[in-house]
């Protein structure tokens, strides 16, 4: 098992492509996305409405090796400055297939 940083990002779904592109540029090679996520934060409730994709969140999970973690986190923070959202970082062990 390899020690990695686990990033968990909650962001409005319209920005999914933007943030994923930024993370890839910064060196992230893989990520997993959960859709149709609702939530409440500083800027009120986000429950979406099925019609527009506005105001609906996604969660992105990325396991990043320690050496690229800082670059990826910087990229995430730059995007989130414009778009809002949260990013939780924790330590994990990656069991490779």
């Amino acid at each position: 098992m390899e020690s990695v940083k686990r990033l968990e990002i909650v962001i409005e779904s319209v920005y999914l492509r933007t943030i994923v592109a930024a993370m890839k540029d910064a060196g992230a090679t893989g990520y997993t996305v959960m859709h149709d996520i609702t939530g409440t934060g500083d800027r009120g409730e986000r429950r979406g409405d099925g019609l527009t994709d506005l105001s609906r969140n996604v969660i992105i999970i990325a396991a990043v090796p320690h050496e690229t973690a800082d670059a990826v986190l910087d990229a995430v923070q730059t995007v989130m400055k414009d778009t809002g959202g949260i990013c939780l970082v924790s330590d994990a062990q990656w069991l490779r297939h």
Partner: protein
Amino acid sequence: MDPSLILSNLLNAPVLFFALGAVAVWVRSDLDIPGPISKFLSLYLLFSIGYKGGVELGEGGITIAILTALSACVLMASLTPIWSFAIVRRWVSVPDAAAIAATYGSISAVTFITAVSFLTQRDLEYGGYMVAAMAIMESPAIVVGIILARIASRDAATGKKASIDWSKLLHEAFLNGAVLLLLGSLIIGSLTHEDAESLAPFVKQPFNGVLCLFLLDMGLIAARRLGDLRSAGWRLVIFAMLAAVAHAVIGIALARLIGLGRGDALLMAVLCGSASYIAVPAAMRLSLPKANPGLFVPMSLGITFPFNVIIGIPVYMMIIDAWWT
């Protein structure tokens, strides 16, 4: 003018289902239409209105009169954002003003479809090309809105230009799913108009029923968004109603000028008077992330949309009836 037209519109099944949706939110019921079903109902309505319009276009062909009408529509969609921006800029920031401007320059497909159902009920005819008009009015306002935001922020002292990703923006404006499905169905309808019967039962019979279900959903969505209006302030709320009437009346005048029939004039009125809540907000979130969706979405969805569906359509019809005779 005949006020009974407003009353009779209030007792219309689609309008009543819209009201039912709003009531469900106000009494905090758990009535809900699943997201994929909302999307399906709206796909059906776009498919159906596009195909029917296309069949008619295919049968009638494209004439100078049609091209004139389409040009008038694009003109309105491009100019509306400019004066809208000038007005709301007094009360809100540049990105907010630009987003509102784009919203009001664009159109609401469901308002259009409700007006079509209103016409059908009254046996008034309309031209299939008005569907084409709807399709081409969705996008220009997005582009104009972004240009306005750029010019206005250039004027500011800092001198820093807001950079715009044009290819992304034009893509978002002209190739979003709703526009593509509408245009695609229109073209397919006009190409296959000779054996349109095989699709007729699908595109015609369930149409009104699906519209009712969809308006029920719109009632739920609009009523939920209404709460966001607290942050908007009364000036924007009034703008959301006056803009509908003013743009619709300009639309009617233009329709009169270029000699459209009564049905087409009503559709022109609702195209000009309605505001977008799908294509434009999505494009604005991407291109103007600083614009607050808590303003332009509830204005369009919570005020202008219900206003047009409940009061606007019959009032515009009355104006047209008075003018055309």
